[in-house]
């Protein structure tokens, strides 16, 4: 069966010493002001809301993040250890990552399944894989799949927390995809053809060798692939790289931005590869 991408929604903003305000964007996107929520949930509402056109109220929500709601968790840790006070109830509740799923479901009036899923090096890939299989198996008919990463100031601490160097530009991102199993009454932007896991490089190479190459294919490589290995895959596949903008600023779920930009471009097929430090790989294939 085919899984269709019928809407994408994104928010991407490089961050300096100040954080761009989000309240107005949330209100514009979901039509109401959601009170007492932090930046992570606001970002989720903006990205999710932008991908929610004609969304079925039975759609499942799959949210992922590279770092999770750092602001909420750091806030609670500081309340406990710096102020020596128990956390406020709602602050504690918002440390649970699926709090963002709740606010999305409530704002978009959804009552389907809802999950926060994650994998350290394959954040976006894993959420898409879980959603794709649920659609392929008929467990879900529609899904809103998104990846959110926020910045917690000061910016130097944010870089230190993420263990990136002081020169690296950082960004916030919220990138979402509306997937459906039946697109008969929808405008199709793309198809999500495959989200595959590979135990090692040889398994990926074998799979790529069987993949029929088309003239307008292009290759994108994930954040964990070093430049030497990137060259290897460009040579092995013979595909041109997908260049969508000058080097984007860093956030952990950058793959979400890559996929959204490719779908927006609206032509060709994207083959995306990523790896983790132990040498496992994942591939995502999207056709427009």
């Amino acid at each position, binding site marked *: *069966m*085919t*899984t269709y991408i019928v809407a994408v929604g994104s928010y991407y903003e490089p961050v300096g010493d100040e954080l761009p305000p989000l309240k107005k964007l949330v209100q514009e996107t979901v039509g109401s002001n959601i009170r007492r929520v932090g930046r992570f949930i606001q970002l989720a509402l903006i990205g999710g809301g932008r991908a929610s056109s004609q969304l079925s109220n039975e759609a499942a*929500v799959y949210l992922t*993040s*590279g*770092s*999770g709601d*750092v602001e909420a*968790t*750091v806030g*609670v*840790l500081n309340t*406990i*250890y710096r102020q*020596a006070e*128990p*956390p406020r*109830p*709602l602050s*504690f*509740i918002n*440390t*649970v*990552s*699926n*709090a963002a*799923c*709740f606010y999305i*479901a409530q704002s978009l*009036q*959804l*009552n*389907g*399944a*809802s*999950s*926060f*899923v*994650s*994998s*350290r*090096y*394959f954040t976006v890939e*894993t959420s898409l*894989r*879980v959603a794709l*299989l649920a659609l392929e*198996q008929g467990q879900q008919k529609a899904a809103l799949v998104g990846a959110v990463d926020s910045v917690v100031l000061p910016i130097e*601490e944010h870089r*230190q*927390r*993420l263990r990136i160097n002081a020169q690296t530009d950082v960004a916030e991102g919220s990138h979402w995809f509306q997937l459906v199993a039946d697109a008969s009454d929808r405008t199709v932007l793309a198809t999500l*053809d*495959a989200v595959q*896991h590979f*135990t*090692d490089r040889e398994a990926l190479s074998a799979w790529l060798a069987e993949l029929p190459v088309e003239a307008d294919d292009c290759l994108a490589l994930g954040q964990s692939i070093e430049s030497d290995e990137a060259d290897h895959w460009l040579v092995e596949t013979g595909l041109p790289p997908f260049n969508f903008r000058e080097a984007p600023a860093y956030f952990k779920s950058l793959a979400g931005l890559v996929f959204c930009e490719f779908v927006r471009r609206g032509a060709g097929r994207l083959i995306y590869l990523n790896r983790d430090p*132990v040498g496992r790989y994942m591939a995502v*294939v999207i056709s427009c």
Partner: protein
Amino acid sequence: MNVTRPRHQAVFLGAGIHSSLGNGVEANLAALKTAPQAPTLLNNTVTDEALQIPYKLLFESPLTELQHRLYRVIDDVAEQALSDAGLSESERRNMSLYLGSSSFDIGVSEADYQRQLAGESESCKALALLDPSMANLADYLVGSLGIRGEDVSFNTACTASANALLTAVAHVEAGLIDHALVVGVELYNDVTALGFYSLDLLTRSVMRPFDSARDGLVLGEGVSALVIGRDPNDGRRRFHLRGGANLCDTYSITMSNVDGSAIAEVMTRALANAGVSAAELDVIKVHGTASLANDEAESVGMHAVFSSLPRVCALKPFIGHTLGACGLNELILFYRAIEAGFLIATPGISADAGDLNVVLNQRLSSVESGCFMLNYFGFGGNNTSLIISNQVSHYGEDES
């Protein structure tokens, strides 16, 4: 590239657990035949010298060296399940990992932050939550067990490991993998302990779900693991997930809608997914947090689905509320107890219908085979209902 894969029956091949009752399935089953015990009152001096938080801590595992303790316990419990399942080295290498938790390794981050704060100076500021990821714990297990399959971490509050199980079974049944290791983890941490203290949901006595005298929950530690794989068809009758459902209730982020409608809906969907009627169900394992409103919502939901309730049992009086791990902890204790020949009983707790009209099983009794519903309802309105069975099935025919 989208392929139609053959569907395979996935069964429970092996289990491991370390809870407040004991370490290992057999130790836990032995303790389940005795009466539930009151919790330990744990001194938490971080915010108040006199604060005591009721807790069911892991059996014979002192709260010291938290990172080492966490890794030692999950390694041990995973090994219990893998040995029980008899997986070969190759099968272990290729299996995928599905981990559910509410707190993952936050206790490790807390200890690190406290260490930094103790040495904080003008030139060296302490920084909370270094290298954050919900999947750090799964990443540890991938390395520790040499897993080359995929890993997926679930954080959906009290339904986390139940949702991990749903996805794991789906992946095995779809033929994507031969084996899945599902892990539920919940260990002591200050954020959870003080968070629940702030919510004023805790009792110092034994939890009494659905009882007219219920007065709150006890937090519990628990780590469990379950190996899922294709049925080896060796003549042994094995438990399997026959169906399930997960839905989001948007009534409130902290409590279920007391009209029971969202809970009734997820149970109804689970029954439909499993292809069984309410009348065919033999036992319900309740979520049963012993809080006033949530037990009321669960009761109303059950009565909306079942014209008369089948036998009902509860696990939390024994092990406390193990939050994100309760999905797997309670499933393993429930199904292994039935395999061992008894249905869990909580004598004296909800012994009569009371204000919620729910009677919990009062004495150890046998159940040989049947269909069983296990319910879990969490913060964020995340509701999951599982239907498990040990009835012989011919997958693709009577249980497809």
